[in-house]
């Protein structure tokens, strides 16, 4: 059974060209870029090239890029840094729909005495800007708002939010792990201070991330030790993965138009055809501006884990915001923050496409999902009650 992989917001396939680019740096070119000899030096020059490639995708300069181990590390580093460089400021602003890399960390900081404001969203997942404007003040050290939501793909107006943060002297960070590589990002014309990138979300391997830090932004490292990354992130460079991330960013730039035309069209077709074929469903974040590759649909009267496992039997890989899939007992915090009615929050399924997604795969989902939903509804006491 060949998998139909529509869970690219969870992780992506490493691009063949990316893998080829990194391959020599394990067994052959394994030198330490910090070494004085030629053997390390040739790796150093590839790391420099990779940094340039990441910077180019972000519209940044290479010295503004710090390589990290993952998106979570980038997120933690950004927030911790802002609090360290502005110790007199004790307030953090984030949103209710952030990834746990931000949300759990902020809640831990709240338990340590920081004041944390979580800005809400409307029914379509859009940030409540009025609430944000009221929450920010001169005690705010950092505002961290995701650029695009991993579950719904809803895009936040981060540029506008960053400009507001600047007026109060707060640093502005954005978790852009779902954004970079999917929609254009240009730090050169932005007020964003820090931005997190994750390699495995854009066809690089797991275990590599980056943090963009705008030139001139006061910064303190999270990990202290060696001089690597200009003293901003200690630890011997994960050279092969850094080189892979560089290549992946280069490819993401080349595929940007493809992503926003071809991939987008496939995603829209999937959504449209599923909505036409399945009654009593709604698109989560349907009224908002969204990523080109993500659609999250809530099906009433059925439960998400059951849907996913029946899809999985057919080789179709998707994700869910339902309670049972995560091991928690409530639907995802994102769907709850949006106020998705409980009749369908448990039955949400997310499909996230990539440049590898084919029309045949979309066709397969459009064919297979409606009978699965019908079958589960037939089994559900509510389905029978409400759908008579």
């Amino acid at each position, binding site marked *: 059974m060949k998998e139909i992989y529509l869970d690219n917001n969870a992780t992506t396939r490493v691009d063949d060209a990316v893998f080829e680019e990194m391959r020599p740096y394990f067994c052959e070119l394994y030198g330490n870029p910090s070494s004085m000899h030629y053997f390390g030096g040739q790796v150093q020059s590839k790391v420099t090239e990779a940094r340039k490639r990441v910077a180019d995708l972000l519209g940044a300069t290479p010295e503004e890029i710090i390589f990290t181990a993952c998106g979570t590390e980038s997120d933690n580093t950004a927030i911790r840094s802002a609090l360290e460089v502005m110790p007199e400021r004790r307030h953090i602003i984030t949103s209710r729909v952030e990834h746990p890399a931000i949300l759990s960390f902020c809640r831990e900081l709240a338990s340590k005495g920081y004041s944390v404001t979580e800005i809400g969203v409307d029914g379509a997942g859009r940030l409540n800007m009025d609430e944000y404007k009221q929450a920010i003040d001169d005690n705010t050290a950092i505002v961290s708002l995701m650029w695009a939501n991993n579950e719904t793909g809803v895009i936040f107006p981060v540029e506008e939010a960053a400009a507001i943060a600047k007026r109060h002297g707060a640093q502005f960070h954005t978790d852009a792990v779902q954004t970079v590589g999917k929609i254009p990002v240009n730090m050169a014309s932005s007020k964003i201070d820090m931005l997190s990138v994750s390699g495995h979300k854009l066809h690089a391997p797991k275990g590599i991330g980056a943090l963009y830090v705008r030139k001139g932004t006061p910064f303190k490292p999270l990990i202290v030790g060696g001089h690597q990354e200009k003293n901003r992130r200690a630890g011997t460079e994960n050279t092969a993965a850094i080189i892979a991330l560089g290549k992946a960013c280069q490819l993401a730039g080349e595929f940007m138009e493809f992503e926003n035309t071809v991939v987008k069209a496939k995603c829209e077709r999937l959504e449209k055809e599923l909505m036409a074929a399945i009654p009593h469903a709604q698109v989560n974040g349907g009224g908002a501006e969204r990523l080109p590759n993500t659609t999250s649909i809530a099906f009433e*009267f*059925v*439960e*998400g*884990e*059951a849907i996913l*496992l*029946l899809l999985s*039997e057919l080789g179709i890989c998707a994700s869910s915001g*339902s*309670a*049972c*899939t995560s*091991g*928690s*007992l*409530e*639907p995802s915090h994102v769907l709850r923050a949006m106020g998705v009615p*409980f*009749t369908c929050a*448990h039955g949400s399924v997310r499909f996230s496409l990539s440049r590898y997604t084919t029309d045949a795969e979309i066709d397969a989902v459009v064919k297979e999902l409606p009978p699965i939903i019908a079958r589960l509804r*037939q*089994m*559900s*006491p*509510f*389905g*029978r009650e409400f759908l008579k």
Partner: protein
Amino acid sequence: MWDYTPKVKDHFLNPRNVGDIADADAVGEVGSLACGDALKLYLKLDDKKEKIADAKFQTFGCASAIASSSALTEMVKGKTLDEALAVTNQDIAEFLGGLPEEKMHCSVMGQEALEVAIFKYRGMEIPEHDAEHDHGHAYPEYEGNLVCKCFGITDTFLKRVIADNHLTTVEQVTNFTKAGGACGSCLPRIKEIIAEVLDKDKESGARPKLSNLKKMQLIQEVLERDIRPLLRADGGDLELIDIDGDLVQIAFRKACAGCVSSGNTARYVQMKLRELVYEGLIVTEVSA
């Protein structure tokens, strides 16, 4: 991904007895859309109204909820109502070859629906079905003070599940009942309730009361699962001769018979049985 047993997968992918029974004698309904899982169980009795002739279910929920419901219907068919009432959530989980601990609440839901159906059939007064929240106070036996507001679970129900399943941590209680799994504000109260149940155990010197049938079953299970394999590994064995109240009579076989340390072995058996079944048990060796 959950590590479901082949039997859970089978009962999820090919659920038995899905549907309803138009002229059902007993119907039990628990759970709700808000809770994320719900089960409606239909029972049809035979002409003499003695045994369960047919059972069907409708379930809204995850794979393990569907599998638990399917298992339950298979298990109760052919049983009298009293025999069916003896089916516990552990029995449902065992039938399926086990459930991930986080999913044990699915088996509890099965047991709950079964009891609601039978109690209703027997004319016990059941409060109106509450579409929002009804776990644990769907029928009078579990009326009590609401502990978990998110999932609508009472202290009476929690105490019963804690005692039946020998739960000792808040996490276990959440896994088995969902209580505390949402906003978490009742977690301190759940901790207190666990302590209350454990204290009561200590006072009475016993675990929550077991029916005689259940006690015998458990003793046999523990002997088969935890003790005999150990003895056999050393070339010995034992046989359960009789259970009379709290008195468990065993006879040693093979290498154990006549072994000088069989007294120690008997004490070990008693210790294990007291630990895993009931603290009041007394094990004696007979030479039958």
